[in-house]
């Protein structure tokens, strides 16, 4: 990896994003709109002992939205690199595979940071989201989750030949993670085999980390462990993605 090439690649990806105003708009507005829907779906019980449902569901969603959105845009962006031939051209230049992969991870991670900051700001100040722990940790976990989405998107794009196929990976990769992460049914109440699946899905740990921030004033060991697992999954996904980038093809 060369810092200069990595830096220029990050700039290039952000520039592409900037030229696409509609995508930028969607990136920033959609999570806020969805949070709004969610807020009005669960009316505030106004009972002192019952915590609002939004505190539980809204918090988890702050982690899920960036994951889903970044997974989608990354798999399409990378697929475009493959289908338009820019990837083949890049691989004939001094650019290293990791320059490209980390370029996407950092550039979209940066976009996700802005997205997460706006969504969290709306959740906390407009919708009175209440977490025992720090807001900054919520944003940090949301960013880690977004980068996880980027890394999995980079990897999965290798298995799609067309955009039609690429979007199909969304339900395959994302939906099971949302279903089994403990949001709909507490993980302890799931059948053993479902728990086993849930245990190997990275989103489970991101959601658990967010729940830890919701419950505890100070960051817990479990939260740091979970964040570490998410980071580990990012590295594994990037290494796998690097293995799918071949300089020579048939």
């Amino acid at each position, binding site marked *: 990896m060369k810092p200069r090439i990595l830096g220029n690649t990050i700039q*290039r990806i952000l520039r592409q994003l900037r030229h696409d105003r509609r995508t930028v708009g969607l990136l920033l507005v959609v999570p806020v709109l969805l949070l709004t829907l969610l807020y009005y779906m669960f009316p505030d019980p106004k009972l002192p002992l019952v915590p609002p449902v939004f505190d539980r569901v809204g918090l988890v969603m702050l982690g899920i939205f960036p994951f889903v959105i970044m997974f989608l845009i990354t798999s399409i962006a990378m697929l475009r690199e493959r289908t338009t031939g820019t990837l083949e051209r890049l691989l*004939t230049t*001094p650019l290293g595979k990791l320059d490209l992969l980390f370029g996407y991870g950092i550039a979209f991670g940066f976009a996700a940071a802005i997205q997460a900051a706006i969504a969290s700001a709306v959740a906390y100040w407009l919708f009175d989201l209440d977490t025992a722990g720090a807001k900054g940790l919520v944003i940090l976990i949301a960013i880690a989750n977004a980068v996880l989405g980027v890394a999995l998107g980079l990897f999965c794009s290798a298995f799609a030949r067309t955009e039609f196929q690429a979007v199909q990976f969304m339900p395959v990769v994302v939906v099971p993670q949302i279903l089994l992460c403990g949001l709909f049914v507490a993980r302890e109440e799931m059948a053993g085999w479902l728990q086993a699946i849930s245990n190997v899905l990275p989103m489970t740990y991101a959601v658990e980390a967010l729940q830890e921030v919701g419950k505890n004033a100070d960051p817990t060991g479990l939260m740091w462990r979970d964040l570490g697992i998410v980071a580990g999954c990012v590295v594994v996904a990037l290494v796998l993605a690097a293995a799918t980038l071949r300089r020579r093809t048939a």
Partner: protein
Amino acid sequence: METAIEVKDLVVHRGKKPVLHGLSCQIPRGSVTGLLGPSGSGKTTLMRAIVGVQIVKSGTVTVLGKPAGDKELRRRIGYLTQAPSVYADLTVRENARYFASLYDGVPKSQADEIVADVGLADQANQLVGTLSGGQLSRASLACAMVSKPDVLVLDEPTVGQDPVLRDELWKRFRDLANAGSTLLVSSHVMDEANRCDRLLLIREGRLIADATPAAVKAEAGHDDLDEAFLTLIRAREKAVV
């Protein structure tokens, strides 16, 4: 003359089908070599093998003394793919500058110069996605030439270009060769073949001719290259039968 590219007994299969059958040729340094042949004859495959992105079955490809695809070569080689490969959501200048930034010591000003060289000075700030077909392929060409590489492999760089521009592009290729670069240019257009130092004619994955345009014409006894190639192909077919 010094050899820049040496291909020896190159066999390439794509899928189960053989595309190149033990092809050998040498390309001298500082020259413009035309690669001619019908669609599907293996031109692109040969170019991909030289650039080092093609999986080869057997044989060797040596570029500037190194095996094709060597890490060292990546900063010395430029490749124009047949389909334009540039970012549609960046401007022409941003594309050229990004590809320039991947090489050591290529200033932004050089990227801007190349954009002007390919006749896109007026479109420099235009998004590539809004260019016409001919402009798009010139934007792609600019990105391949931006590092002024020692070896430049161009897959049909002048298709769909207006004759005046085509003439100017060929002058640019000649300038680069005069400055020491080695160019391999594929084409369908025979009048372009006349502007090359050497010609490689391939058909069905085999080399039919490897000579200067004058020698090709002399051997076939035709002044017209189209006719000359036809004669060579027929002679070859008879020899095989």
